[in-house]
């Protein structure tokens, strides 16, 4: 797969750090975002990075963007930000099934109509990638994969030889990504591998209401990755989603911890873990 964004991605160098937090898709879950930032501060991280898809799925998309901007979070574009900033008519999520597309359309139209023009302009200023060093290891932050903004890197579909190729082709030790909404990591050797930091926007299709982010810190020759569960007022979020007229399928996911949409894109192994 090529980089199909059609332009060379802007890459920012964020320098060297010891311990950092990575936030995956926020999907307008501003309540979980507030809790995650508090948890990251408790862990004394050097910086927080948000890897895109700030809107979608949840209510009041401006609230998450305002929290991110006020907190000084380093942000890159996800496919949502790229689409909103460029005036695209869909989210370019990469779905292939009509039902998935139907819900993606509702989600994108709501987010676009409720995101301030100034925030959409700001999204257009964000880089596509960030490079930094964690201890002695080079990390490349991206939304989907280093080569394509909407490529899904699922645990069960990202084999070790492919990870080796990504690291080699993109001159890095560590790829940090999101886009799938499910967190996982795999290291081929200390400090060399992939961290998918999951999503703050909705639960991990595991029957728990918690959402997740990742903290990566230097440890010996490599790095250590901890996934941090975030408990938040999910009932309040679900009610606000209903008040905003978002589909009941979305609030059901928030309340049950199981995905009800985006199901067809799930690989066999990840699909088997959910209820639907």
């Amino acid at each position, binding site marked *: 797969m*090529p980089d199909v964004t*059609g332009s060379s991605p802007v890459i920012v160098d964020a320098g060297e750090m010891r311990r950092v937090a990575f936030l995956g898709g926020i999907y307008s879950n501003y309540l979980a975002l507030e809790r995650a930032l508090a948890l990251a501060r408790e862990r004394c991280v050097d910086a927080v990075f948000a890897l895109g898809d700030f809107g979608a799925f949840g209510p009041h998309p401006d609230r998450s963007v305002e929290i991110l901007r006020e907190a000084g979070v380093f942000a890159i574009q996800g496919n949502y930000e790229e689409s909103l900033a460029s005036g695209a008519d869909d989210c370019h999520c990469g779905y292939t099934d009509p039902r998935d597309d139907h819900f993606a359309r509702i989600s994108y139209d709501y987010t676009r109509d409720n995101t301030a023009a100034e925030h959409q302009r700001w999204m257009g200023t964000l880089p596509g990638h960030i490079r930094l060093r964690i201890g002695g290891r080079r990390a490349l932050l991206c939304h989907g994969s280093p080569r394509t903004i909407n490529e899904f890197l699922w645990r*069960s*579909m990202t084999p070790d030889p492919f990870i080796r190729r990504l690291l080699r082709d993109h001159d890095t030790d560590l790829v940090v990504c999101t886009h799938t909404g499910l967190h996982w990591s795999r290291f081929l050797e200390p400090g060399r591998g992939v961290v998918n930091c999951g999503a703050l926007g909705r639960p991990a299709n595991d029957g728990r209401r918690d959402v997740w982010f990742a903290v990566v810190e230097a440890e010996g020759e490599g790095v250590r990755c901890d996934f941090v569960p975030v408990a938040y007022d999910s009932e309040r979020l679900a009610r606000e989603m209903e008040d905003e007229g978002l589909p009941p399928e979305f609030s059901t996911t928030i309340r049950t911890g199981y995905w009800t949409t985006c*199901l067809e894109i799930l690989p066999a192994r990840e699909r088997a873990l*959910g209820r639907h």
Partner: protein
Amino acid sequence: MSATGAAAAGEHPEAPLFALDVLWFHVAGSLCNLECRHCFVSASPTNHRFGMLDLATVKRHLRDAEHLGVKEYYFTGGEPFLNPEILPILEAALGQGPVSVLTNGLLIRSGTARALRRLWDGSPYSLDVRISVDGWDAASNDPIRGEGSFERILAGVRHLAAAGLNPVITVTEACQGAASSAGRARFLDFLREIGLPKPRLKVMPLLRLGAETGRTRAYAAWENLRGRTLSRDEAAALGCSSGRIVTSEGVSVCPILVDSPEARMGSSLEETLRPFRLSHSACYTCHAEGLSCRT
């Protein structure tokens, strides 16, 4: 959007190979235990044009694929479960990446389903069993796939479900109405009824090749990509920009064109890491109808 695969006036465009992400194995050759009336490679019990791939051959190409960082493996035929080494072959592939196997399901009896479940349990990667069916009942399916095939396909599906595996059901547009939203909904209900609580469905357009040319028609003269220019996005959507297939006769560009001599690109994967000219009429279907062979 930058253009790629630009064609000179009157020529067919080329699809670049962006990366070898997907490797197919024509593991059963052209041998099949059905003789479907729409089969674009005319697989049948008597078609021996392509031979089966043995475990040693598959392993040799898997080693090359590992070096190239291939992301997914697919096994097709003919009918893959006619290959006596299919289970060790799938096990070898699952050792280094996710696997899809495309089958008619007739040979998936309870023992085979349990063996597939063991392969699933033994790998961190996904195993997708893709079963083809062409109707909601025998009356719609059997005229296409053969007398009595519907019940035998369903038996395979049920054996997989009993083993805790959730196959992807593939249906072609030979099943009237399957591509419409009402048709999809009907199919999903049907799959729930036969014991798949989380149904997975893939609807494929028809390819006017092989047996299908006798059932409906061959490609018309205008169905080709001559003179077209493909954008980078359009080229990236084509299977040939990220995949290749190993057959008994060498490595070809894609599973659709195994019968076409011009689609044969070399004897090793390395020899096929180059652009492919989209001169076949079937390339028109992939482009115009957005056909993707991937699961």
